[in-house]
């Protein structure tokens, strides 16, 4: 998986490419945990993400909980396969998919 992270003032944008799975989820967690001081907006771009497993969902949940306290979080360009995983797991009610 490739992670492209950009921080502009208080807005963090993370674009993911590949698979957010049991092997790569810790990588993403490392880019977020302890690195969101002063961030009020966290935006994920899933345009090039092909799939997500529960390990990836766990990281998104952690990020969502952090951002609930200090601002907002959105996910854009979600493909149909990942959308279905969000729906089955109830994550579509927790996350803001734009």
């Amino acid at each position: 998986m490739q992670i492209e992270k950009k921080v502009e003032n208080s807005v963090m944008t993370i674009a993911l490419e590949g698979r957010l799975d049991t092997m790569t989820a810790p990588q993403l967690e490392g880019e977020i945990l302890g690195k969101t001081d002063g961030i009020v907006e966290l935006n994920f771009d899933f345009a090039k993400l092909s799939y997500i497993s529960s390990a990836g969902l766990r990281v998104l949940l952690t990020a969502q909980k952090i951002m609930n306290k200090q601002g907002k979080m959105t996910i854009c360009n979600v493909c149909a396969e990942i959308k279905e995983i969000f729906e089955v797991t109830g994550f579509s009610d927790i996350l803001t998919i734009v």
Partner: protein
Amino acid sequence: MERIQKEITVDSKIENVETLTAFVEESLAPYSPSIKAQTQINVAIDELFSNVVNYSGSSKMTLLIDVDKDVLTASLTFIDEGVAYDPLAKADPDVTLSAEERKIGGLGIFLVKKTMDGIEYRREGDKNILKVVKKLV
């Protein structure tokens, strides 16, 4: 009835999830599975293999793949020699809770149950045998 059967055994190391996924994708390619079915199968491999790696204590895992060409259905059987563990005995997580109330965990096997067409577990001697069935189209 026409069927193909293949198997692979890997060390119980998380990076082998890629070996398993490649093996399954290659085995299924001749039957042109839908992108959705293949994606769901890949997620199931990720969930079930990471459970073996993280919790079973087994040093190896064997994956059998069996494709029934007549009905275009694949069976994937995960076999490890770890501690007895029936993932189907666990209650499903409450997927209606808010982010704050949600617990981290328990989602993997739930996802597999929801996306596969069949799942069964049995303990045979010192082996955990978990089989999932999925239609390819």
